[in-house]
């Protein structure tokens, strides 16, 4: 296994373009158990990056470290050039670092409209709430028909749409989505991936954690492969999709 610690997820990005997010030598874990071993990633602005790898490889742990749910043991995370230090999750969301967590985590007892409204909590998001609301209702028209329904009563696909929509209401500069397609029918998953694509085309930076490696590599610009708490490979999504090792391990071909 390679123990490369510094890797550019988007190697083609010109040096002049500052990274939207950079993790440097990040190490952390739960209790006394270390999960991440010197993770370094760089996300170029305006790109859709896929983070893939086997279950238990530390993908969700890395996301939790990035959004401040889990303190770092070592290393640093910088967002838009500023070290995030010990900033709590709500402070990171206020700066535009927004996670759509695994399992949707909606405010189930509240209405769809209220979930969207609460997404726009940070000050800068409130200023852009009207525009973002139009954006998400255009992206997911079905949510527009269900505004008065309780979020918990939506179907799985609608819940995932609402989770993404709530994240967009926070006016993210980087949108991180954990397990976008989990538990969804293939057609629904494909339409959510297409939505990610459209968001990226609109200039949004996105980091996508995904079980479905094939689909993830097909829609992404760049990809990072994690194994056992380390970055195993990274590069352009097209290169990784054509790589024999990756094909053998994750695509089953």
């Amino acid at each position: 296994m390679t123990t490369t610690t510094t890797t550019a997820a988007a190697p083609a990005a010109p040096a002049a373009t500052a990274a939207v997010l950079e993790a440097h030598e990040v190490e952390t874990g739960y209790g006394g158990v270390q999960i991440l071993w010197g993770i370094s990633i760089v996300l170029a602005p305006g790109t859709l990056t896929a983070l893939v790898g086997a279950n238990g490889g530390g993908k969700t742990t890395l996301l939790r470290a990035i959004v401040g749910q889990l303190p770092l043991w070592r290393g640093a995370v910088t967002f838009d050039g500023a070290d995030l230090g010990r900033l709590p999750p709500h402070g990171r969301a206020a700066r535009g670092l927004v996670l759509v967590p695994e399992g949707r985590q909606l405010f189930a007892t509240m209405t769809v409209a209220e979930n969207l409204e609460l997404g726009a909590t940070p000050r800068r998001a409130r200023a852009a709430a009207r525009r973002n609301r139009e954006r998400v209702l255009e992206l997911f028209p079905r949510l527009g028909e269900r505004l008065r329904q309780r979020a918990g009563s939506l179907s799985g696909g609608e819940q995932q749409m609402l989770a993404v929509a709530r994240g967009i209401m926070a006016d993210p500069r980087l949108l991180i989505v954990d397990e976008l397609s989990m538990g969804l029918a293939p057609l629904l998953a494909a339409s959510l991936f297409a939505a990610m694509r459209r968001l990226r085309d609109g200039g949004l930076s996105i980091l996508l954690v995904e079980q479905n490696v094939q689909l993830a590599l097909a829609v992404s610009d760049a990809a990072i492969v994690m194994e056992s708490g380390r970055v195993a490979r990274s590069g352009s999504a097209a290169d990784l999709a054509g790589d024999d090792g990756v094909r053998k391990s994750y695509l089953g071909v």
Partner: protein
Amino acid sequence: MWSETLLASTVDGLLIGVVYGLAALGLTLIFGVMNVVNLAHGPTMTLGMFGIYLSATKLGLHPFAGLVLVAAGGLLLGVGIYVVAVKRVIDAPHLASLLATFSVNLMIVGVATAIFSTSFRNLSHDLGVLRAGPIAVPGTRVAAALLAVAVAAALQVFLTRTRLGKYVRAVAANRAAAELVGIPSARVLALSFGIGTMLAATAGGLIALSLPFTVLSGGVYELKSFVIVVLGGLGNPLGALVGGVVLGLIEGIVPVFARATWVPVLEYGLFVLILLVRPSGLLGGGR
């Protein structure tokens, strides 16, 4: 004659029941938002009773003006209790928060006993008697019930119509997700504990308008609040009000048919029965 007594007792029970419901609302709100059973609930009610009593006797305030002081003081006290005692155990197992709030309970009762002793106080604020046909009820009881309803309605408006109120509901529904959309959950938790304590203190003040009390009275009403929230469903605000009315009606009606000493037997019997056959409460648990 007999039916008139029954009617009067029913009205009486209904009026005090609404106030019980307000107290239970405080308990159930705190549980619903942060999953903490607040064992300092009773002493907070006691402080509300003494607050309204002292503002009337020492400051010469009208009881309803004293009530505003009690509410404001309750809010601050609750935030203080949260920051000092609850915050550090908020993610610990239940036993830790039970012990933390129970310690606050013991401290308040201890200090209050040292200052006020345990003798009875009586505000006996008189607003005359309201008559409607055969029924006559003390005006203070009616005023207390109306105020309790008004406070509960104001809470409902706060929770459903204001941004801050929606933060409270969002933190109750999913604290981690609330953080992720930028809601400062630590502050919202402190505020929620403050509001819950404010409701308890206010209910204590309303009870003190028409009933005698001691430093230890809060303990009695704390138990009633527990019966009520279990009756209505733990964490369910509407259930707390309904449960309060049920308990008030039992207290009003039972003495018409049997000795008043049967009241607690029935109340706690009902408590056990609900736990056995419908542990989620009459209206189901809610958030």
